[in-house]
């Protein structure tokens, strides 16, 4: 079966390094970007199966990236997982207007993230087979 592609966006190299380690070990193909702008370039080359992004990044933050992604590709509903430490109301309100977005609170367990992705793809495969 073809490997699932994950786009990982974070300006913290340690986060990228560790999550990438766990994703590669679980058989995923991983692409990385250090901010939203770089991520949009990666997406334009090939749309990943799932995007995992941080919020606070220079040049283009995670929320602006999500909004741009949905505006550029309205027909694609790629799952975006946002890694966040923010709990303010305005952030939640803004993010909740986006569809197909999930949140992972920091400090984040990379193992739990991988388990969540495995379940997501399993459920999607089942849905396709049932459909």
């Amino acid at each position, binding site marked *: 079966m073809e490997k699932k592609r994950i786009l990982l966006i974070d*300006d*913290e190299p*340690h*986060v990228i390094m*560790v*999550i990438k*380690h*766990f994703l590669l*070990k679980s058989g995923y193909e991983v692409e990385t970007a250090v901010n939203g702008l770089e991520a949009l370039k990666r997406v334009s080359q090939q749309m990943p199966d799932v995007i995992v992004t941080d919020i*606070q990044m*220079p*040049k283009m933050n995670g929320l602006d990236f999500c909004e741009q992604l949905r505006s550029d590709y309205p027909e694609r509903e790629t799952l975006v997982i946002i*890694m966040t*430490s*923010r*709990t*303010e109301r305005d952030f939640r309100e803004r993010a909740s207007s986006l569809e197909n977005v999930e949140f992972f609170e*920091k*400090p*984040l*367990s*990379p*193992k739990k993230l991988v388990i969540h992705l495995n379940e997501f793809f399993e459920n999607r495969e089942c849905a396709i087979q049932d459909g």
Partner: protein
Amino acid sequence: MIQEQLSNPIGIVLAALALGGLALCIWQHRQLVRARNQIVGLLPDTKQKEAGSLPFALSLLDQHVHEKIKYLKERRQDAETETKALSYHHKKLLSVLEVFPEGVVILDQAGMASFANRKMESLVGIAKEDIVGKPPHDWCNDDKVLNLLVRYEGNVTRLRRSETVEFSPADKSDKTLAVTVSPISLPSQPDTTIGVLILFRDITAESMAKRSRDDFVAHVSHELKSPLNVIKMHSELLLDVGDDPQQRICSINVINDEVDRVSNMITDLLNITRLEVGSVSIERKRIRFRDFVADVFAKMQRAGEENNLRFKLDLPQSLSHMSIDKDLFRIALNNILSNAIKYNRPGGLVTLEAEENDESVILRITDTGVGILPEDQERIFEKFYRSDDDDVTSRSGHGLGLSLAYEIIVLHNGQLRVESEKGKGTTFTIELGKTSNLLKEAV
């Protein structure tokens, strides 16, 4: 004999007249008795027994009427005095409302504005003349406030308890106002609303303080969770990599660095918070300033030489003794020097120079590092501010060090300035006044 008289016509007439006269007398007497009784009836109960004949009753009535007139005159005077007093109190109350620091509008029972003070003009931008005598929808130009006020238009009795909304006036969007609507009732009838008191209060400062506190908490939680996130990641990695010694050492080093980062941040945060709330009292001591600066520099130099940097200390032969809080000033100087090290390039130079004139002692910390963009120079002393510049984001930091240095130097009545050219380097200048120093010491 009588028969003779009766047979005499004159006698008959005389007899008739006599009878008529008698009847008239009786009728008159009755009239007089009735009149007297009526007069007696007008007298108070205590006087009724005293009233004998009609003239006496009339005299009593006259006396009674005079007393009554006198009493009524006195009552009128009392009433006039009371009216004047009430009018005075009314005007006094209106004067108090007029000089109230808050905008005041009073709606009467029909929901019309019966009073508005001058403050309404400066606070909300509506003159009192445009409010008084009109219902809220004629003068209120904010939808949110109007929605609250129109509910009571024509029927203020609907209002049972106070309600408050916040809004920004149309032409003063930088201001935040709170409008509180409260029922007015008489003490004798607390359940009956006879009007509405509307208070407009400027809460700009309060809401800014609240916003900045919320931002501060959000920043702190983010800044704390970021290093904790990295620690969590590497601790899971450590459990996963097995015996790979290189990876184990790498992860342990990262965890160690991140723990230091959290610890330094908490220390800075506590210091900055204590300084801001004024719970830290500055403990000045007169010290040999030259020795102090040289000591701080030497310690930072030892730490910075590992980064392949050069250091130059250029102090005059002698510097005046200065009266400073050594512990706080060391934090300020350390933070500026560690920035000069962190944002330098390999092989770069960190210089600390000092000079002195009649008024002040000046320290200059210069690096040959990445420099600061002009737009960032304006905000560099703000709490948590970090530039989006790649040269900044590629280095770890929490945006508190310079803010803390600034607070400490200001606390010493000094100044901290920055000059920088992107790509060439940065100079931080600390200027400490000698006079204020001495004055402060004298105090």
